[in-house]
């Protein structure tokens, strides 16, 4: 049993509760225990780094210190939370003065940062720690015929964490999709930004960026876009109607979390994966793909 300190992040409490549910279900099915970090606080999103860097590091360091107290590696399902905490740990480890300053603040909550707990994105846990062979072995309901646009987005990969990692031509997301029996399509904009928080601060730019991503997925004849970040999911799915209104398009593209895709492949009932809370229904697309699959195979 692999155990991690689980940092759900604010989005997963409500907006992305289906990501939370499916993360827990999928982890359980794969022998991964996610122990929710007790009394975790917001990672600061991007907004904190806009206002005060030191404050932003302090917020992240509190969560890191709590994971250390539990003696567990930290895992975050949101790419933004992951990036913030990964780099806070990195900066504090390399800057003793910064760490000392922040530790003086953390002492108010009886906490101390030492850098012992590593930081991971949930998708890395499945891809690297559990391993794709293990995932594949546990698949009972291969999602044959489902054409998936695996959408990496930004902050799982960027900025670069190690000198030699592949940030331009990654393959792990497509490989995970393939391990679930589905078919990853060549998705040209898989690394292009979903517009992030611009959906609030610059609607015009954001809707145009979302439109490009949707159009690209349609051109690749994807049936569904799969994401690993709650903000990507909200921007691509919940703003589809607004994109259609602004640009006169007719997108109706389901956008699901990779944990939901995995959960279905592992034979977990859709309801337990939070499927049904999306604005563009996922199940019809999946059923259709699975029904047409024998016909495709016969050709």
């Amino acid at each position: 049993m692999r155990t991690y300190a689980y940092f759900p992040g604010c989005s997963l409490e409500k907006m992305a509760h289906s990501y939370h549910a499916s993360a827990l279900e999928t982890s359980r099915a794969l022998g991964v225990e996610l122990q929710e970090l007790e009394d975790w606080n917001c990672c600061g999103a991007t907004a904190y780094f806009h206002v005060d860097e030191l404050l932003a590091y302090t917020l992240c360091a509190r969560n890191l210190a709590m994971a250390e107290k539990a003696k567990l590696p930290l895992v975050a399902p949101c790419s933004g939370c992951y990036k913030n905490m990964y780099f806070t740990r990195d900066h504090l480890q390399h800057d003793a003065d910064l760490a000392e300053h922040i530790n003086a603040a953390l002492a108010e909550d009886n906490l101390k940062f030492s850098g012992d707990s590593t930081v991971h994105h949930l998708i890395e846990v499945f891809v690297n720690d559990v391993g794709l062979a293990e995932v594949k072995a546990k698949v009972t309901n291969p999602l044959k015929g489902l054409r998936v646009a695996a959408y990496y987005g930004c902050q799982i990969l960027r900025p670069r964490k190690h000198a030699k990692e592949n940030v331009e031509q990654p393959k792990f997301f497509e490989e995970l999709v393939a391990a679930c029996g589905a078919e990853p399509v060549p998705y040209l904009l898989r690394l292009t930004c979903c517009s992030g928080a611009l959906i609030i601060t610059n609607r015009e730019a954001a809707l145009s960026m979302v439109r490009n991503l949707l159009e690209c997925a349609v051109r690749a004849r994807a049936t569904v876009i799969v994401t690993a970040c709650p903000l990507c999911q909200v921007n691509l799915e919940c703003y589809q109607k607004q994109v259609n209104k602004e640009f006169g398009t007719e997108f109706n593209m389901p956008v699901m979390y990779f944990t939901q895709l995995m959960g279905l492949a592992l034979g977990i009932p859709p309801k337990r994966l939070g499927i049904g809370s999306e604005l563009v229904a996922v199940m019809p697309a999946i059923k259709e793909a699975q029904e047409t699959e024998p016909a495709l195979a016969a050709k």
Partner: protein
Amino acid sequence: MSAAAAETTTASTAPLDNGISFVEEISNLLYASKGNAINTCIQCGTCSATCPVASGGFMDNSPRRIIALIRSGFKEQVLKANTYWYCASCYQCTVRCPRGIDIAELMYGLKRYTVWKTQHQEGLIGPVFSETFVKMILRSGRSYEPVLATTYLFTYGLPEMIQEAQTATALMLKGRLPVLPARIKRLDNFRRMIQHIIPLGDKE
């Protein structure tokens, strides 16, 4: 771009703040950045070409141009630009810069600079949003979406407002919007922790 290009103002000749030049001032903001100094920029334009917001035509000055303006001391033009407030932090420029400059962190640095000096371009939602977000976290330790809506809705026209309300209603029907704000348990400790970093008023 044309408006910025038409600027007749020349590089700032005003006395230096604290005896340091604008480019030094900006470089000092990049405390945690591991990248190279902006003086090493070769103006190749990879950042602008790779930026999904700049290449969509939404920035008044491209990232490449902002770096050139900083280096030449065009402080006023830099403070007036929307470039950094329209940066979505996708880090594509950072990973592709052939000189290893952490351009996305530079954008963060510029945001902080204009927030501190309250000198950002008028009408931008970004600074208001960020400040509201920070106050919200200081109050409760957690994010709460409905508070954030107040930062941008007033800038919307009626059609956008209606569309936004429709999206919110759809999300609410699916149980995806919080009714009550969440808060952390050890809030007193949390606030004392924050006070080590920045001074907080008695209230909020």
